């Protein structure tokens, strides 16, 4: 691998980069590219914000406060049968 990435090479690593699945040395290469390429930096930032936003929306599911207690009771009942 060369010591710098083209836009295409950086883009091919976009998803793994956002998901922290890239090897450390590849992460450094992507970061270096984003520092010198405003277009890719904007695209990566857009994808990151989109991912963060979707996650934030989905995290709003309210978990019943007594879920653990109810499940605990169900396990107790199962243990008694």
């Amino acid at each position, binding site marked *: 691998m060369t010591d710098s990435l083209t836009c295409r090479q950086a*883009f091919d690593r976009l*998803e*793994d980069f956002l*998901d*922290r*699945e890239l090897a450390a040395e590849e992460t450094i290469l992507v970061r270096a590219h984003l520092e010198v390429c405003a277009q890719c930096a*904007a*695209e990566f930032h*857009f*994808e990151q*914000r*989109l991912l*963060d*936003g*979707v*996650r934030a*929306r*989905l*995290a*709003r*599911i309210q*978990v*019943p406060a007594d*879920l*653990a207690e*109810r*499940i605990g009771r*169900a*396990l107790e009942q*199962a243990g008694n049968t």
Partner: protein
Amino acid sequence: MKPLLDAAYRTAYRLSGNAGDAEDLVQEAALLAWRGYGSFEAGTNFRAWFFRILTNAFYSRYRRTRREGQAVELEEVPELYLWRQSSAAGLNDVLQDPATALLARLEGEEVNAAIAALPEEYRVVAALYFVDDLPYQEIADTLGVPIGTVRSRLHRARRQLQRALWETAVERGLVPARPAGEVRGD
């Protein structure tokens, strides 16, 4: 145990689509885990083991015709779909953070619906990924599939989700409609 059950509930909600079924699924998974605890290998990932039980419980309850190796192929969606649509609509020029602004215009239920509309193979991976932020390997361990399968399903699910979000925004008149041909697919 509570954080695990809460995470399991959120995932179960995404899988089943409603609160009642989500609680039933978590309860069923807890019972199965309790009864089958002897099969858990000490030193391995308990969370992945529990989530595997949860997803298997989901499959056995809701999937009538599960056939391994027959994943539904999703229609290919161009890369950076949302970015390009947003750019073509002029939003990227006037908004500092167009992705966040776009999501802010959508109702939470519309984001939920976009995930719920994914074919099951992709929805399960997306639920574990978006809701629980699990690493690929842990999703693979949970589902008992190769990591490459997780990567490719996520790749397609993301693009499908982007298109669904944009189409919802267009349908609701939140963003200007653009002819599909204006989005490059290169």
